[in-house]
């Protein structure tokens, strides 16, 4: 049989275990699956993970030694807290460089501010509110940029503004006469494009989509009638995704904000502003879809999985990809060089691949203390929640809980992936302001204010 031959050929010609990852990749395997090589590179480049400095001017007390897993018990008491902890931490991972610094933060803030600015991330904890304020004012950058939000919302397929090649492909399919199995494997975006275009032609209009609920119902019925058998799942999928026809493809508000932010971006060490600017120009003057002129971003490269045959999806991907690369070339080659001669390839790719997920977190407009560093401080206070009972208790589980939360936020900031804490509901992070997290570990809940 054909298949067994394939495998026989395969198994006999197998090379010794190939493609297996190296030791370093294996060590970080479980996190690489979350943020991939780009995130890991960011962690390594940044000082926190490739290199960290622990600033602490105090000596280890008995209470510290009982409370901190990285101090060496009684042996550490009386020694420098920074040095003892760095010893304990350094031993965790020899690929990371740790430095102890015994200066006082007040002294650093008054005379060596620039030194603080050399770090990618500064985490302050249990510090006096004045110090937090000073740090925040000094360090908080204008914008935190997020390139890969890993958003679970679907990418735009631009059904309502189909590019010409896709439209042509959709209209060319002989729906009534084609093979019934092929019919059951037409990818749903193609069905939607076809149905919408037919709907428009009947009305002799070039744009528009069903808008009233009756029209929408009738449109879904139209898709249902296109089935040639009662259980064609791809048509069921199309019916379920019909909302894409009447959801106009526009530039998301978060990206619109970035456009405003970078409209006059001049010189910048990062290529990101140049890319945003290029995107902006592309959106204003999309040369590839002249009939719809403005308001569109380049297509994203990822197609969601859908019921279809390999051939049909291959055909669709090909149409999509050719268009995508045209879009991308227009967006990057067309505009970027004018702004910035040197755009790093991989970053360009990331921006283009993820542009619907790009979010900007603007400079905090309320008070500077509402920073990620404040997250830890506020939470310690609320967590104990019983300040009269334990005015200065810093219990290990609460500390570990907060440490974990802060570490999650730091990772999100450094990798520029996932969405950091923001004010209000986690889902409505559109206002881009960072928030304060409160933690109650009596009844065990967290909240963001």
């Amino acid at each position, binding site marked *: *049989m054909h298949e067994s031959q394939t495998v026989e050929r395969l198994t006999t010609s197998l090379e010794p275990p190939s493609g297996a990852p190296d030791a370093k990749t294996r060590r970080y395997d479980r996190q690489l699956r979350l943020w991939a090589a780009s995130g890991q590179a960011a962690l390594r480049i940044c000082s926190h993970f490739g290199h960290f400095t622990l600033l602490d001017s105090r000596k280890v007390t008995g209470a510290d030694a009982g409370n901190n897993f990285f101090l060496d018990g009684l042996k550490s008491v009386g020694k420098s807290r920074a040095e003892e902890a760095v010893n304990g931490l350094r031993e965790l991972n020899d690929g990371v460089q740790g430095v102890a610094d015994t200066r006082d933060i007040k002294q650093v803030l008054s005379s060596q501010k620039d030194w603080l600015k050399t770090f990618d991330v500064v985490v302050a904890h249990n510090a006096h509110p004045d110090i937090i304020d000073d740090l925040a004012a000094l360090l908080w950058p204008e914008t935190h940029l997020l390139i890969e939000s890993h958003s679970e919302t679907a990418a735009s397929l631009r059904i309502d503004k189909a590019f010409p090649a896709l439209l042509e492909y959709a209209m060319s399919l002989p729906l009534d006469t084609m093979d019934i199995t092929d019919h059951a494997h037409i990818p749903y975006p193609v069905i939607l494009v076809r149905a919408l275009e037919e709907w428009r032609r009947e009305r002799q209009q070039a744009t528009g989509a069903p808008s009233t609920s009756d029209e929408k119902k009738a449109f879904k019925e139209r898709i249902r009638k296109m089935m040639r058998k009662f259980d064609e799942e791809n048509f069921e999928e199309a019916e379920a995704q019909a909302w894409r026809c009447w959801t106009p493809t526009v530039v998301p508000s978060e990206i619109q904000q970035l456009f405003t932010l970078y409209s006059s971006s001049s010189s910048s060490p990062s290529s990101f502003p140049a890319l945003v600017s290029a995107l902006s120009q592309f959106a204003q003057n999309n040369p590839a879809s002249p009939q719809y002129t403005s308001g569109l971003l380049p297509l994203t490269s990822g197609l969601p999985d859908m019921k279809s045959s390999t051939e049909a999806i291959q055909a669709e991907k090909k149409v999509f990809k050719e268009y995508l690369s045209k879009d991308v070339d227009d967006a990057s080659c067309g505009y970027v060089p004018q702004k910035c001669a040197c755009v790093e390839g991989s970053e360009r790719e990331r921006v283009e691949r993820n542009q619907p997920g790009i979010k900007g977190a603007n400079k905090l407009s309320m008070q500077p203390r509402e920073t990620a560093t404040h997250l830890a401080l506020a939470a310690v206070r609320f967590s104990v929640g019983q300040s009269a009972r334990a005015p200065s208790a810093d219990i290990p589980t609460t500390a570990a809980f907060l440490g974990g939360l802060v570490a999650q936020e730091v990772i999100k900031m450094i990798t520029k992936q996932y969405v950091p804490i923001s004010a209000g509901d986690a889902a409505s992070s559109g206002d881009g302001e960072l928030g304060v997290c409160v933690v109650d570990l009596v009844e065990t809940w967290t909240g963001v204010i």
Partner: protein
Amino acid sequence: MIKIWSMKKNEDAASKKKPKTSAAQIRVQKDLTELDLPSTMKTHFPDPTDLLNFTLTITPDEGMYQGGAFNFSFAINTNYPHDPPKVKCTQTIYHPNVDLEGNVCLNILREDWKPVLNLNSVMVGLQYLFLEPNADDPLNKEAAQEMSKNRDQFLTHVKSSMRGSNIKGVQYTSVLVLVIVALVSSFRCHIVAVSVYPFIPSYLLIESRIHIHALRSCND
């Protein structure tokens, strides 16, 4: 200490405890004893004390697979019903949704399995495959193509595969139910026909293995 504890320890509490029954085991007991199967489906337990491994025989009484007896093995693991039962066809059959290795394409056996489903739903789902084979979700691609492109040829293949023919180099398992029609009058009983199912009215159909046994004694 939270209140549910008293400070005092009771040292010998452990001794009387019996080894417990797993949730999977009780769930299988429940599923099996509450099966509601039509006469076209029968379970068989090679070891009646082992509820986790058994076979199911489906003898469709209509459709293109009428007359066949199709065997499936069920293997249930201790993580049931979190994990679905593992079901395989133990014969080589010509069916668009069953491959030559016995793998079965049935959504509730994989992607759509959930713990609220039970063995009854799986069995009914399997029978449905014989009443309504689905050419759009093929596992045996050639059979599926034949079914959608040349239905007459497909039916011919189904019938001959069920007789145990060799089609395009594949030897199929004979799955036909052997039936012996016995005419019973007051004192005598004699066998008048040995035949295959489609020609015999279904009310005469009894379990095939009994009749194979009868057939042997007849030859003697």
